[in-house]
């Protein structure tokens, strides 16, 4: 071997050149040095020889497949880590929300957005697990574990909305509707933004729809109650102003009405019969009845109106 004077400052560049790691500019600079330095040229030849030998041998290596145990362990680790993370994220988010002070209905839209820490954590989790792979799995596999994570995340967004006054059973509907929307539109996800943000936007749209629906029903209910109250007051004032003979007549009419109502009741089936029973015989209000049966107050109004029409006709006939 010839005695060589090493140029330490070029050593790393020479190795990089042998590894084809230099850019055009660096290569030109090194070539200029090599033209005037025999020892560095020799050094490069030696590294080239080494790299050629290693790469030639590398091609001959047959790599075995990873063992089934290893692949099974990977699946298990991936599954458990995502479940743990989702559980932790949801628990932490709910703990945070319990500590929050309730706000009025008008500010509900702002509090519907989950805590940034939760989004960050879930996003970090999804990023770590490669967003594209997660979405591909969601698209291909209806039973994917990731659907459970999406459900937990959507549930968190919807259920952390404590301030809009949305009824709990309606929140369940919102979660289902959001999941269906996500499933339907998953192929249109463009990867321009974060997947978690996309999920949150859909959940918020569905949540706002549900809140609007509920508010509309509430307005109808209030209008109906107001009308009914007015009618009751007018009836009471009529009764109080009537002399005794007129009161007896009214009693007779009331008795006839009651009988007509009973006859009408027996003709009804299922839900309508239950409504009439709750309102006329058990003395429940419209709103209370609507909640008990789980239907809108307007439906109660329609049924009662039909019953009154029947009684009115029956009284006119007698």
């Amino acid at each position, binding site marked *: *071997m010839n005695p060589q004077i090493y140029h330490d400052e070029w050593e790393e560049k020479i190795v990089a050149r042998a590894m084809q790691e230099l850019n055009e500019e660096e290569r030109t600079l090194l070539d200029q040095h090599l033209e005037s330095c025999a020892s560095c040229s020799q050094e490069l030849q030696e590294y080239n020889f080494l*790299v050629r*030998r290693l790469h030639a*041998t*590398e091609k001959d*290596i047959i*790599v075995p*497949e990873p063992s089934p145990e290893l692949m099974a362990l990977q699946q298990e680790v991936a599954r458990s880590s995502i479940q743990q993370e989702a559980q932790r994220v949801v628990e932490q988010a709910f703990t945070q929300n319990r500590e929050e002070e309730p706000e009025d209905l008008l500010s509900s839209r702002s509090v519907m957005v989950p805590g940034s820490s939760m989004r960050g954590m879930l996003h970090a989790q999804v990023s770590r697990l490669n967003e594209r*792979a997660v979405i591909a799995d969601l698209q291909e596999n209806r039973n994917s574990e990731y659907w459970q994570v999406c459900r937990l995340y959507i549930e968190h967004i919807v259920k952390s909305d404590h301030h809009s006054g949305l009824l709990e059973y309606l929140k369940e509907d919102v979660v289902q509707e959001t999941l269906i929307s996500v499933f339907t539109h998953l192929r249109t996800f463009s990867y321009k933004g974060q997947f978690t943000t996309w999920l949150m936007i859909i959940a918020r749209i569905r949540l706002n729809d549900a809140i609007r629906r509920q508010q509309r029903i509430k307005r109808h209910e209030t209008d109906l109650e107001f009308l009914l109250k007015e009618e009751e007051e007018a009836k009471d004032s009529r009764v109080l102003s009537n002399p005794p003979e007129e009161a007896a007549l009214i009693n007779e009419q009331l008795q006839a009405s009651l009988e007509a109502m009973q006859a009408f009741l027996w003709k009804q089936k299922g839900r309508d019969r239950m409504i009439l029973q709750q309102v006329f015989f058990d003395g429940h209000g419209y709103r209370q009845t609507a909640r008990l049966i789980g239907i809108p107050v307007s439906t109660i109004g329609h049924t009662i109106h039909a019953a009154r029409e029947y009684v009115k006709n029956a009284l006119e006939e007698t």
Partner: protein
Amino acid sequence: MESDNSFEKLIERALFDPDSLRQLHRRIYHFHLWFLGDVLDAQDTTQDTLMTFLQKHTEVRDRSCLKAWLMRVAHNKAMDRLRRRRPELSLDKIESPDESPLCEFLASTDVYDMPEEVLERQEFNPLVLTALKALPDKHRSCLILRFVQELSSEEIALLHGLCTEQVRRIIRSAKTRFAIAYTQLVSEQLEKERGQDS
């Protein structure tokens, strides 16, 4: 070969993506095969390394260190395996290898004097692994990490607890030692062939 950045991404993806795990398995297997020079040992240590990786990756708080941690695990597993074996052909015992009588003798004739077409004959490829086995562990490890795993000198320094300059010196020395061992093995092989011919 992938860049360092994509190697890091590959490690992250390998936690849940089977194809990425296969690619990572390939890289770690290469490291172990080059380092240990034995297929069965390489299979075992690769399996152990990746099992440890999957089971304990959560202990690595700083995810940017995951690559360094994985390579450290791979290196330690290989060293454990080596300790269980009896050394076969090693220059470990030589304290100043570049000044040893063997090296002086070999240095007296230029190892690169042998024609390239002879040195680079395909049937001599298995001798590369044998020549690597003749290097001291640290030299072999640095050489493989730099030229096969494509880690930078700084990353190798971090992995071995050395300074970058030491790593460069080791690589330079390892390159010469490899050339000496390989040329010697080729010469022996050629002599055998000549003996068979005659």
